[in-house]
Each structure stands twice: as C-alpha cells, then as structure tokens.
C-alpha cells in the first residue's frame, strides 16, 4: 500500500522487538508529523549509540567510548567483589539498590539445556580468567531466580569455590508488598530457610 521511504521506514520499525505491523505504521506516521529536528535527533541517537557503544572488554557490560565500561574504570569500586549477572540490564537493577559497590561480570545469558545453551555459549571462560588474574575474593551470583538462573548459579559456584572464591547467591523470599497467602511453596520454603533474626 505504501511505497518508497515510508514503506522502508515501516518495514524497519516492524523488525524491532514487540512492534507489529500496525504499531510500525503508527510510529512511522508519528515520525512524519514531528518537526524535522526531532526526526534528526532520533536518527542521530541511533547512529551514535551504534558507533560509540561496545561491550566492556573486562566485564561485558555496555561500554561507551572506551575498552572498559564506567564501572570497571572506576577506581573507587571494590575490585575484590564481583556480581555475576546474566544481562547488562541486570546491572542497572542492582545499581539502583545502592547496596553494591563492587564490580560486575555479565555472562550473556543463562544455562538453558532445553534451548541448547550450555557453558560454552556463556562468558564463563572469561570469568575464570578474571579469577585466575587474582584480586577477586568474593562472587555474588545474581542470576534470575528461575530454573535457568538457578542452574547457572549452581554451575558457577561449582567452578569458583575450588579456586578459593567465596560464592554467594542472592537471597530468595517474599516480595515487599506481597500477601503471604499468595506465596508459592518454593518461594515460601526458601524464605523460611533464609529467615533472619530480628535485631531489637
């Protein structure tokens, strides 16, 4: 129905995750309507993010304009503690807590035997290389609390513990603001196991 540049724009937008043909059409017509400067700003942002953003050579987080990311380049961070995550977006979630001041290692996914994803598809070798290089005393495994994340945590713990690294796992329990009656057995069981004494 549409031809030329408009068709091309709709096709490209439609290739983005979660954007169907109708949404692509709506966004394309929105871009047609906005001032030219706004459209340039959007296209420049896309080009710049592709040109300047790489993966950190040390932790595989998103790095802007250098070999290392901002966290690995920061001398104030504790280099003896690393947080092992599945995805760079998980770093943002942990950073929002303001509770962790060490460095990170992004595995690039989780073990998923049903999808054929084994250790070779993850940045496990690179993690071991960082441990071999010394300095790292503790690793906190912050993979998702699902089957794949738990399997990955067990695997990482099995690799790192014999190397003298203290390996811990994020606590698992009840979400703040939730109702106890809706808690599932697995979560509630773990919450009971990981209960804490109330300090008064």
């Amino acid at each position, binding site marked *: 129905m549409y031809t030329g540049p408009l068709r091309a724009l709709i096709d490209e937008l439609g290739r983005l995750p979660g954007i169907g043909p109708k949404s692509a059409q709506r966004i394309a017509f929105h871009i047609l309507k906005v001032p030219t400067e706004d459209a340039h700003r959007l296209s420049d942002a896309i080009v710049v993010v592709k040109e300047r953003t790489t993966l950190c050579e040390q932790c595989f987080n998103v790095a802007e304009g250098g070999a290392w990311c901002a966290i690995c380049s920061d001398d104030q961070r504790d280099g003896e503690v690393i947080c092992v995550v599945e995805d760079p977006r998980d770093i943002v979630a942990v950073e929002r807590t303001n509770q962790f001041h060490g460095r990170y290692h992004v595995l690039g996914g989780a*073990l998923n*035997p049903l999808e054929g994803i*084994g250790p070779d598809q993850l940045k496990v070798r690179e993690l071991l290389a960082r441990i071999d290089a010394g300095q790292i005393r503790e690793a906190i495994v912050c993979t998702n609390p699902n089957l794949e994340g738990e399997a990955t945590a*067990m695997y990482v713990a099995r690799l790192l513990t014999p190397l003298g690294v203290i390996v811990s796992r994020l606590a698992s329990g009840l*979400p703040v603001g939730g109702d106890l009656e809706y*808690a*599932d057995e697995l979560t509630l069981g773990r919450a009971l196991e990981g209960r804490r004494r109330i300090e008064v």
Partner: protein
Amino acid sequence: MSLFRDTGVVLRTYRLGEADRIIVLLTEGHGKVRAVAKGVRRTLSKFGARLEPLTHVDVLLWQGRSDLDIVNQVEVLDTFRAVREDLARLPKGLALLEVSDQMAQERHPDHRLYAMLVGALRALSDPGSDPMLLAPAFFLKALVLEGAAPVLDACAACGEPDGVVDLVAFDLVVGGALCRAHRSGRPMSPAALELSRRILGGDLAAVLAGPPPPGADEVAELATEAMEVHLDRRIRSVRSVAGL
C-alpha cells in the same frame, strides 16, 4: 469457550511480551496444552514460581477461541526440589521434559506418558537413587509406548534368536539388536544387551535401586541415540550440558 481443571507437569516456558510467559504443560486429561500466564514474570505475580519447568501442578485454565489457553489458577502438587537444586539431576529431569514435549500431542491425552513422566520425576527426586540410568530408561520405555520397541531377543534383520546367533550391534533404524552378519549402527556388548532387557522386562526398579550395573554407560548412550533417531532431532538437554 470454557474453564477446565487438570493436573500437569510444566514442560517449558517462553517469554511473551513485557511480563507474560507461554507455559507448555503435559496434562493428564488434555494432553499437551499451551497457555499464557499473564504477569508471571513480575515479582508480585500471584503465580510466583508455580509455573517454572519441572513443577507438577493442579491448574485451572480458560480455553478461548485461540490455540493458547489462559492460566487462571495454579496449585503446586510437587516442585521436585531435589531435582531442580542438584546439578547432577537437573539435566536428567530436563531431558525427560524435552522428550515428553516432543512426544506429546496437543489436546490428545496420553495417560501412560503422563504417568510415566510423573513417576520418573518422583524417582529422580529420590535422594537415594542414582540418576544415571533414569533418563535412558525413560527413553527406552517411551520408545515402547510409541510402538517403536527395540527388538532385543533376536536379530532385528534376520530374526535368528539370541543364542543361535550372537547379538553384537544395535541399530534402531533396522529395529534393534543385530547379529554379526547383519551388524550396523553401533556395537553392543552382552552387558548392555542384558541391561536393556532388564529395563524393558519389568526389572527397572531393581536396576535403578543399586549402583549403575555393567554396561550402564553404553545403554545411556544407546538409548539417547535411539530416541534421537526416533524423534529425528538431537536431545538438546542431554547434548548441550554434557560437560556439566
């Protein structure tokens, strides 16, 4: 369009949209069912960890016009926690799920496959059992269920019984064990032949109760290959985590 209740095992899940998942269940009364669990990835979801793979659940589903049902309510029957928290048992459990997923038909109940899967997961979660032969035994039993039982008492090519000829090879494409004159596929030792017969001959409980008997490694590889030939695809959960 209606609500229905069934028991089932969560075989696998796929992410859907921002916070949903598609759940694939092997149910007792409706065969393989695919359903959307809305908001399950949110930390405050009412489903929580109930719809993770390996969980045995009692589930209330809404069947609408689409192929995908909607998960309405879930209660856990068994989490098989000993399987999901043991790196040696977990790949075996996932292999059972993967093969069951491949064998089950959508909306066609298969009571024997369902009972076999639940029974195998219970056996696997028994801390006293050795998990090594459980998945291979499941594969061999599943082949019988599919009408592809391997011939083990005679040569599958010439029909000469064991004793008259020596059975020295195994090839599921031909139909099972083979004599020296017709051998193809992979070599098969007498210990592996005997163990395969015990597994399919009603002695499975005794086989699984003790330490792995002679020929166990061979039977494990042979059963996996036979199932892969039958399904015409690799069993990813066995192959991708072989080094774990």
